[in-house]
C-alpha cells in the first residue's frame, strides 16, 4: 500500500524544486491551486469532503511531478473532477471547466490548451497513476465531530470551539499538512488550537483513564506538545498570509497579544 506522508526534508526536495522552482514559489503554487479547488468546488455546491479530497490529490500529485511540467490550475480542475467521482458527487468535466474559466484570468486559463476537456481527460489518467489509484481519502472533519462528542463542558463553548477548528481544517488545506500528518493528528492539533484561542480548556472527557494526560491521549498515541505547536504554527502562518487573523481575533474576542503569542509559538 502506498504511504503518503513525508518529512520536512522531502517536502523541500520536491520535483518542482529539483527543476529550479524555489520552495517559497512552490508553496505559493500549492496554495493557489488548493484555494482554486476550494473556490471552484464551492461555486459548484460540492461538499467539503469532495473539495478536501481534490486538494489532497493535488498535493500528492506534486510530490511526483513538477509545477513546471504540469500547470497548477488544470491539475486542480482534474483533481476536483476525479474527487467528484470518488465521493459520488460527480460533475461533468465541461461544467468544471466552465466554472474554472469564470474564475481565472485569460492568461491563466490559457494553460488549459486548445482543447481543455481533452487535456483534463488525459491528465485524469496521469493523475490516477500518480496517486496509485489510492482514491479514498480521510479528512480531519469527521474526527473533529468524533472528538467533540467525548469532551465535557459548556455545550455552546464546545460548539464554538469545534466550529473554529473546522475553519482551521479548511485553512490547513492550503498547507502541506496533509502530506505530513494523518487526519486524526491534524484534527487533534486544530481542536487544541481552537480551544486555546477560544479560551476553552478541556478538563474532563468521557472515557477518561488515569493514564491520560490530555483528552487526545484517548484517540492518538504519542502526541507531543512540540508536534501540536508545529502543526498550529503552520496553520497560523497560513492565516496570516490570508490576512484573516484580524478577523479571527475580533470574532473570537481574544486579545491581539494573546494571538500574537500563539503566532510566536
Amino acid at each position, binding site marked *: 500500500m502506498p504511504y503518503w506522508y513525508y518529512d520536512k526534508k522531502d517536502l523541500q526536495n520536491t520535483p518542482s524544486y529539483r527543476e529550479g522552482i524555489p520552495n517559497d514559489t512552490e508553496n505559493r503554487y500549492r496554495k493557489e491551486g488548493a484555494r482554486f479547488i476550494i473556490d471552484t468546488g464551492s461555486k459548484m455546491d460540492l461538499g467539503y469532503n469532495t473539495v478536501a479530497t481534490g486538494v489532497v490529490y493535488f498535493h500528492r500529485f506534486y510530490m511526483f511531478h513538477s509545477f513546471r*511540467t504540469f500547470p497548477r490550475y488544470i491539475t486542480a480542475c482534474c483533481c476536483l473532477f*476525479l474527487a467528484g467521482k470518488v465521493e*459520488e458527487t460527480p460533475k461533468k468535466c465541461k461544467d468544471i471547466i466552465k466554472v474554472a474559466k469564470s474564475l481565472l484570468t485569460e492568461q491563466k486559463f490559457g494553460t488549459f490548451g*486548445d482543447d481543455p476537456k481533452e487535456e483534463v481527460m*488525459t491528465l485524469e489518467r496521469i493523475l490516477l*497513476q500518480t496517486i496509485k489509484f489510492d*482514491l*479514498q481519502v480521510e479528512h480531519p472533519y469527521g474526527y473533529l465531530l468524533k472528538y467533540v462528542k467525548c469532551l465535557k463542558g459548556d455545550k455552546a463553548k464546545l460548539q464554538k470551539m469545534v466550529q473554529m477548528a473546522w475553519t482551521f481544517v479548511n485553512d490547513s488545506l492550503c498547507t502541506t499538512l496533509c502530506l505530513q500528518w494523518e487526519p486524526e493528528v491534524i484534527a487533534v492539533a486544530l481542536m487544541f488550537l481552537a480551544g486555546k484561542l477560544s479560551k476553552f480548556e478541556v478538563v474532563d472527557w468521557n472515557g477518561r483513564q488515569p493514564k491520560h494526560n490530555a483528552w487526545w491521549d484517548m484517540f492518538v498515541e504519542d502526541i507531543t506538545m512540540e508536534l501540536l505547536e508545529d502543526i498550529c504554527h503552520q496553520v497560523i502562518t497560513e492565516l496570516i498570509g490570508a490576512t484573516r487573523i484580524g478577523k479571527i481575533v475580533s470574532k473570537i474576542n481574544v486579545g491581539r497579544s494573546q494571538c500574537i503569542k500563539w503566532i510566536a509559538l
Partner: protein
Amino acid sequence: MSASSSSQAATTVTSVNDVSALFQNEKKYEELNIIGTGAYGTVYKARDLHNSGQIVAMKKVRVPLTEDGMPLSTVREIALLRQLEAHRHPNIVRLLDVCHGGQAMDREQLVLYLVFEHVEQDLDSYLSRAPGPLSQARIRCMSYDILSGIDFLHSHRIVHRDLKPHNLLVTSAGRVKVADFGLAKTYDTEMKLTSVVVTLWYRPPEVLLGVSYNTAVDVWSCACVLAQLHSRRALLPGAADTDQLHRIFRLIGRPPREQWPENVSVMIDSFPDYEPQDLADVIPGITPLALDLIKGMLVFEPSKRLTAMDCLEHPYFTEEPLM
C-alpha cells in the same frame, strides 16, 4: 499558447498532451506467463521488478472510457478495493497495486492492471489434487475461512456474485482467500464485449431467473462450495440455465407457487413438482451439523437464507467435537 511574461513563463507547457508523451512509467512488472483467461480479462503471473522479484498475479481489465473519462462505477469500485485493503483481512486476497497500461493517448479504453499477491493454487485444483477425502477438521477450517471472507465483503456492501472454487485461493498453509470480487460493474461492461462461458453451477435461482439479487447470492454459492468440500465434486453441475434450475429444484424441491417471483419469464409450471431430496443422501458421510448449516444456506427465497454472519455463528463452527 501562453507566451506569458510573468515569472512562470518558463513553467507553462502549452498542452498536457504534449507532456503526456514524456510521461512514461518505468517498467514495474515483468509478465511471465498467462495464469488464466476469464470472462473479465487475462491474469498473468508476473515479477515485481521493484520488489526483489516477488511473484505477483496481474489481472488485466479493459475499461471502456466514457465521454467523461474513467467511468464513475470503476472509480468507485477501485476506491473501495483500495480501502478494503487497509483491513488486510486474512481471507481476502491482497491487492498490492493498481496501475494502467500507460497508453495515455487511447481515448477509447484504458487498460487497468490490478496486482494481487500470487497464490499457487485455487480450490478447484486443490480438490482435484487431493489424494482422498479431506478431513473433517480441514473441511470445517476451510468453510470458516470462506464464510469469513464473504462476511467481510458483505459488511462492506460488496456482493461477490461469482463465487466458485476457481475464485477461492488456497495458500500453502491450507488457508482459503477470496479473490475476484468488487469489480462487478466494471466487469459488466467488459462482459458484453467477450463471450466466455460462465459456470452456472454455483448460481442461485434468483440469478438464473433474472430477478434482483443481493448478498444472499453469495451464501447460495458458498453452500455449493461447502458441499463440494465434503464430496469433492460439484453439487449442481448444470449444463445450461434451464438445466441448472431443474437440478436445483430436484435437490431442494420446487418452491411453492406463492414463493415464485413475479415478472419472471420462466413459468413455474415448466418444472415438475419436484419433491426435496435428502441432502444427506447427496453428500454421503456429512456430519449432522454441517448438513444443517448447508441446508440453511440452500433456501429458495433469498430473504430466508442464512446470512454469512449467521453461518459463522452456526453450531457447526461453535460446537466443539468433530469425529
